[in-house]
């Protein structure tokens, strides 16, 4: 196969770069769907293409984007955390209460983010120590977090109007929402982490084949716990952005976001089985969710049907990924049968 090799400019031999058809990447289908949805909505309701509406969409998907970035890494490592919504509720309540109590917002935010990190770490730790799937431990922690949040707030709204608005409401050049830029930062961070660091390689290895990872010197437990810690940090940031935008917190703040985040990750082509996936897919998955939600509003569809649409969307994305692996399998089979004859 030397004809495929080529010398690069420094004289070292490299393997052929290799091209994979764009039609096999999930994000491409998502982009197509997004363009189609945008065009249709724009035709029916021209207000869709106004700058203020487009910026609204970006603002609305910021929190989901931050949570989904952390979730992507966690799912690639073969774990999951469905308590992120309750975690947001808990930590945003703590942040709001501290601010109301006169603590400086920066300090309150730091405490809140640390709390979110600790919470997510607990989910991971219990899962590793008790050798239980993290789905189960995080399920249990949903009620723990919600319960504590209810207890400390006594179930009441924690309003902080006017105290902490900058992050959630300010716009760069009076145009681009700051919260959206923060979410772009989260995507970039996860991207760099996954593709350019040892930690990223560990995450993929542990998700793909934990035994092989262990036998190559990787600590499976610490890698997974690391993914949980990182997930917790992003959950904390998401709680901060959400609190700042709404100006109030209550224990149920953020509830339901876990399903939309997992949905966005899966739609983006990261399988729940772990070991595979890219942040680019998640980005387009989140965008699709925001877009659909917005265009259903624009088309004056009953809001209750939006929930139905999300469910259908996840099923549809599974169908796409099954179809593409099916095609790929057929190809792999052809290749391996061909190689027998060599």
């Amino acid at each position, binding site marked *: 196969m030397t004809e495929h*090799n080529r010398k690069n400019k420094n004289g070292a031999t490299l*393997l052929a*770069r*290799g091209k994979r058809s764009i039609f096999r990447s999930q994000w491409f289908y998502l982009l197509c769907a997004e363009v189609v949805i945008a065009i249709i909505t724009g035709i029916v309701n021209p207000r869709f293409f106004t700058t203020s509406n487009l910026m609204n969409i970006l603002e609305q998907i910021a929190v989901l984007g931050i949570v989904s970035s952390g979730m992507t890494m966690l799912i690639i490592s073969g774990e999951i955390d469905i308590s992120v919504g309750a975690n947001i509720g808990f930590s945003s309540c703590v942040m709001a209460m501290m601010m109301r109590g006169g603590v400086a917002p920066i300090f309150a935010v730091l405490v809140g983010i640390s709390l979110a990190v600790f919470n997510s770490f607990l989910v991971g730790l219990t899962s590793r120590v008790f050798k239980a799937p993290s789905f189960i431990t995080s399920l249990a922690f949903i009620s723990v977090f919600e319960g504590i949040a209810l207890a400390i707030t006594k179930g009441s709204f924690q309003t902080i109007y006017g105290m902490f608005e900058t992050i959630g409401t300010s716009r760069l050049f009076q145009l681009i929402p700051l919260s959206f830029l923060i979410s772009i930062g989260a995507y970039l961070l996860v991207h760099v982490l996954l593709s350019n660091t040892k930690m990223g*390689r560990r995450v993929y*290895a542990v998700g793909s084949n934990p035994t092989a*990872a*262990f*036998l190559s*010197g990787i600590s499976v437990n610490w890698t997974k716990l690391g993914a949980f810690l990182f997930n917790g940090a992003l959950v904390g940031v998401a709680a901060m952005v959400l609190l700042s935008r709404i100006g109030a917190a209550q224990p149920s703040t953020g509830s339901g976001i876990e399903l939309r985040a997992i949905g966005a990750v899966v739609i983006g082509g990261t399988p729940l089985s772990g070991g595979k996936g890219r942040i680019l897919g998640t980005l387009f998955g989140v965008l699709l969710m925001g877009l659909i939600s917005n265009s259903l509003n624009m088309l004056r569809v009953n809001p209750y049907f939006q929930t139905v649409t999300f469910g259908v969307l996840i099923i549809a994305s599974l169908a796409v990924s099954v179809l593409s692996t099916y095609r790929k399998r057929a190809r792999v089979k052809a290749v391996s049968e061909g190689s027998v004859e060599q």
Partner: protein
Amino acid sequence: MEQSATIVSLKEITKIYGQHRALDRVSFDLFPGEVHCLVGENGAGKSTLIKVLSGAVTPEGGEIFLSGKAVRSLNPRQAIEMGISTVYQDAELVDSLSVSDNVFLGDERTGKIPLMVNSKGQLDQVRQIVDTLHMNLPVGVLVEELSASQKQMLQIAKTLYRDAKVLIMDEPTSSLGMEETRVLMDLVRTLRSRGMGIIYISHYLEEIFEIGDRVTILKDGGYMGTYPVSQIPVETVIKKMVGRDASMFFSRQPVEMGQTQFEVRKLARGGMVEETSFSVRRGEVLGIGGLVGSGRSELVNLVFGAEKKDSGEIFLGGKRVHVRSPKDAIRAGIALVTEDRKKLAMLGGRDIVENTSLVHNENFKGPWIDAREEQVLTAKIVKELSVAVQDRLQKIEELSGGNQQKVIIGRWLLDDSLVYIFDEPTKGVDIGAKEQIYNLIVALAQKGKSIIMVSSDMPELLSMSDRIGVMRNGRLTTILDNDGISEEELIRHFIGVPNAGGEQG
């Protein structure tokens, strides 16, 4: 043995997996009231023959006769209806149900009230079977409370209840003690006297000579003949199990050996490996042989830190190294190419670059990935080991078995280790890649590395090793100098049949 018609008869059965002939024109028949033994090395085709008999696989060629009638193919249902039952090493029993419930599993007796199980009726019926066979088997207790031998008895009771005519026993004594083995032997005799046909597979030749009526010998999927046990000496059986063509052997270059580089002292783990000590010199290839389940992989896993050792010390270049995990082992300079690359080594769904640079990036690099370096290193391995790949984005599972193995081995070549452990290095690899892997191992030895090679492939062990360590029942029984050992001699050590000249251990 009465000369009645056969229960089962296989004529010239051939089974092909890919390019490999697992069975090549093998004939086998079984009369009622006889114990027909099946012997052969690891991978000789015994299990495949059993699978054909139980309908689990369909042979490509040959004829099957059931009670004298030809059947085109045998599916599992037919096999069970014909009364062919298998007692496996790992019993397929439901631990949380009682002994009698397990016997009646899927076929429960109902009592007077519809849909309610008649537990008492079941208990009585099972007790009857157990009593007539004089089994030591409490019928009312849960299966999880039974010992290994009692579980086996339960499986046999189950087949008797189903009115089996043919009982297949695959290594029935491998997990039994002496006394339990004796009880089992008595039971087999009772069953035989009741007219059952028994197919008995065992590595332990003494059992076969104790209990068998006839013995069929397989070698590399080929049929070596069927003989009455009373008329064939042990030596002849062993000779027929081994003795391959010279073309099966690889002739390697000799390598000059240096000083002792790697030493293991009194390494042990309860229930797996008994106290083991050995050493390997620079440039030496130490082969480790033994039967399946003799503890070979367990030994190398202990050395590599993949299993926690109870006791023992490891020395590299005269200095003691502490190996508590694979990471420690890798840092110290020990590399392990595992058996079963799919389960233990490949990162499925990841490309060849990531698979090749896995160990290097994890253990010998800082927190950042050097994308250019890993491309260069992967290209180097691809060239050196002539791995057939399309481009760098190709996923490892898209490669052929031999090329996958080369990538996995390549993973350990990027950084110099002192000791290379290969566990079944050429399993499921085609002939061409096999030779390349052998050459690679010799090249490593030439560079002064110490090689430990676990293998079930006898020609491989004999042609590659400088010395051969023999594992039996979790014990390294002896280390033989490989100066003209015959296959026959080696397998004697594996199965523990003493030599005419006497043997230690």
